């Protein structure tokens, strides 16, 4: 099996998060039919940045949902070759229950992506160095969409990339490093290519399922061939799944709760305790300093520190609670500890997400001085208007083993790591259980009950980020192909 990455065939988003392109806008659209879709792909193909492209002043990426693939004319049996989660989509009732998209996060209340709404067929992600360039690129895209008769479902604006997410915490510190990418050389711990890029060996040394077409379906030889040697045309290779979820963050509610829960006996506010409780929920201080290394107070010198574990230094969670957000998102060596740190890390590495999200709404924090926001904002003040949050994006090779596993088994699981009723204090849903946050301590723990829900889902869909060759293949599909609905399609 070839393990050398074909960088020129991989969309550049897999290789970089575009920290040099701080302005971004994501357009979700509905495709009326194959011809319109093909026109868009043709227009965009020369503009898509690859992992081999030099960094420019803008970048563009395109992804399609299963519904979008159908609209492009891809037959149902080929779509069934993708992961079942992708083929079914994010919003079936069973999947909503599984992902915790219930009550206030239920698709029925979403702004976009819900079943009764216009179909989220595709997604264009634009990144730029300046707002002017972004506006120009977006205007070009808009006229292309109009010309093709493609309808915008929603345009998701983002905030200028800062180093704080809306709750006010330094974010994006711990990212998996893909083996085989140029920048992986500096890293001591890398994850196999196939964990994020289809068609390469994954953490088990195997190729994840992806749509393979008989060679006859690709007479122009646009697609690479199955690296396993079957001779089939590999529609999945060099692509990956892209999860997009609009997560609205109740910033005022979060800090208000932290203030209420830490009031002194005389009723006055205790700013230090308030930040400390918020940090316990996150697992890092606002600066980013990890609690296991800075248990008592924030230490901005450790803002990007990612070199720590839990197994030896903090097994009971006295520094970083067992249920803290970062200890769930990436438990490092905290789980299955009986098998030892190395084995535990290896298991955790099979559930990593490559995060590419961008914040939206109002700059709640991060642009002000250290901790300034948290202290200054009165506890009872409402959150910023118009909605603030994160356009969460993650890239994975397996929706079930990576994104859905982390969402269900780690974040939203009230019984995570031996807990009883604790979902993720920051992002977790509280229905039907999970409103407890336990802070281990000496001599005894402190338990916060009735935690409000701070994050609500406002929209979302599963997309596939195809390789350049797959885009070329999709572009030339017969425009008259009528594909059957995925629900009735069966796997080979």
């Amino acid at each position, binding site marked *: 099996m070839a393990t050398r990455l074909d960088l020129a065939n991989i969309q550049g988003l897999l290789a970089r998060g575009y920290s040099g392109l701080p302005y971004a806008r994501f357009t979700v659209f509905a495709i009326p039919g194959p011809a319109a879709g093909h026109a868009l792909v043709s227009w965009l193909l020369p503009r898509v940045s690859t992992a081999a492209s030099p960094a420019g002043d803008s970048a563009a990426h395109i992804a399609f949902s299963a519904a979008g693939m159908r609209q492009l004319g891809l037959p149902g049996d080929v779509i069934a070759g993708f992961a079942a989660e992708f083929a*079914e989509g994010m919003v079936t009732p069973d999947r909503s*229950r599984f992902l915790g998209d219930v009550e206030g996060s239920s698709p029925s209340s979403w702004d976009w992506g819900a079943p009764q709404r216009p179909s989220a067929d595709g997604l264009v992600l634009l990144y730029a160095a300046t707002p002017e360039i972004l506006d120009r690129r977006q205007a070009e895209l808009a006229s292309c969409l109009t010309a093709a008769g493609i309808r915008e479902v929603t345009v998701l604006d983002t905030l200028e990339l800062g180093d704080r997410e809306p709750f006010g915490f330094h974010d994006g510190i711990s990212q998996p490093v893909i083996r085989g990418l140029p920048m992986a050389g500096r890293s001591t711990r890398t994850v196999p290519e196939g964990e994020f890029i289809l068609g390469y060996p994954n953490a088990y040394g195997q190729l994840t399922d992806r749509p393979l077409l008989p060679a006859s379906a690709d007479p122009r030889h646009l697609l690479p061939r199955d690296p396993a040697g079957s001779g089939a045309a590999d529609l999945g290779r060099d692509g990956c799944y892209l999860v997009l979820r609009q997560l609205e963050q109740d910033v005022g509610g979060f800090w208000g709760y932290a203030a209420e829960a830490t009031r002194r006996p005389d009723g006055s506010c205790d700013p230090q305790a308030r930040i400390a409780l918020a940090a316990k929920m996150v697992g890092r201080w606002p600066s980013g300093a990890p609690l296991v290394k800075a248990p008592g107070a924030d230490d901005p010198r450790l803002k990007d520190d990612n070199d720590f574990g839990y197994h030896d230094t903090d097994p009971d969670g006295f520094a970083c609670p067992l249920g803290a957000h970062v200890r769930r998102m990436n438990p490092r060596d905290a789980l299955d500890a009986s098998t030892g740190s190395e084995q535990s890390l290896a298991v955790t590495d099979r559930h990593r997400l490559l995060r590419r999200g961008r914040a939206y709404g109002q700059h709640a924090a991060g642009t002000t001085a250290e901790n300034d926001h948290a202290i200054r904002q009165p506890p009872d003040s409402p959150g910023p208007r118009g909605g603030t949050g994160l356009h969460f994006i993650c890239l994975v090779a397996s929706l079930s083993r990576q994104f859905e596993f982390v969402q269900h088994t780690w974040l939203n*699981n009230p*019984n995570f790591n*031996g807990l*009883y009723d604790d979902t993720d204090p920051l992002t977790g849903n509280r229905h039907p259980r999970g409103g407890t946050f336990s802070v281990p301590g000496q*001599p005894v723990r402190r338990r916060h009950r009735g935690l409000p829900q701070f994050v609500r889902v406002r929209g979302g869909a599963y997309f596939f980020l195809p390789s350049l060759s797959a885009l070329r293949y999709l572009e030339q599909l017969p425009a008259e192909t009528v594909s059957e609905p995925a*629900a009735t399609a069966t*796997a*080979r």
Partner: protein
Amino acid sequence: MPYQIGVTIRAPVAADRVPALRAWLAEIARKGLAESPFDFAHVRGLHFARFCLLEETADLEGRAIPASLVFMSEVDAPLRRHLADLVDVAGEGVDDAFRHCTGYPGAGARRRHKIAWLRRHQVSASAFYVNTVGRGLAQIRQEAALREALEDCLDRREWTGRTATEARGELRAHVAQRADLAWALRPPAPPSVVFRAREALHMVAVPAALVLLLPVLLPVLGVWAVMLRLAERGDQPVTERPTLPHLEELSRYEDFVTQNPFAVVGFVKPGLLRKLTFRAVLFAIDYAVRHVYDHASLAGITTIHFARWVPLDGWRRMTFASDYDGAVEAYNDDFINIVWWGLNAAFGNGVGYPPTRWLLWGGAQLEQQFKNTLRCHQVAVPAWYTAYPSLSAQNIENNARIREGLRGDMSPADAQRWLSLL
């Protein structure tokens, strides 16, 4: 405390009754089994229970196997009491269920006829795993209540400035004061002397017999290993993937509470070699779960409450059924990461399993093929009952350790460790 038994009752369903049974199962799935007409919440010592339908099929030689209704329960012994409860407490529901089956005496039949019928339709498991042997339903419930009482006590009082030893002392005093918790200061009673004697005898007798048979077994093992390896070379990789409608049916009944039911059914590979291998492996599993993995862990997996391996149709088919914590993806990952060798040894003898090497290697290590084949062979469990829907196996074990830590003296460090259980 009682030991736990796994009861399997299976009865054929005539083809023309299958649609009605399917409709009935869909209705019961909505209602659940806890209340009327099953009232399983009042069946004594019942931990988990389920009904599922095994569709009509044909075996590897093309012989028809009729559809059947399967009932499984994980319950505290004795069996006699449980069968009686099924008729006396859950009778209305049990009548409703088995009236779809050929030969059921019917709602109007006498009690002892129904019990006899249920008894006759039992299928024995080759191996039955209990997370912690001897931990009965009453104990699980009591210890959960104990933990909640202690947590409430922690919430209500101020603890800053106390040492761990002081805090533990205060909690012990709290328990001692409360008449309703006084039991917690005593250790749980072990299962009966008869049960323990039987298990001890089994524990010693099996290895002793093996040692005696060793001179015969060793050469046989050598020949067996070679034959098996030769047979394995004919095994094909799994290319079948579960269909979307099948996945949709499975997920319709999954992920409502902390635990999930799991059931797979598949054919045993043809030939004497595979049948004997399967039997030998299950004999070993039976020994291991009774004497080695009898406390809180199945070879490293801590999320399984109960599991059983039940041969069906004269060893032509095998079913594996369990009650486990979390989602099926995490469960399968545990299989792959922790007990791949155990899965291979058993299911490597099943049709459609990823190819194994020397029975233990390969198989579950082929992640995607393994997950696909499990999902393909998984049977939906529309009607399922759990007595403690929010407790994980880890929670239950933790609760038992909390109770255990109420007794005796502890060093300050041990007292702190104990307090961390809360």
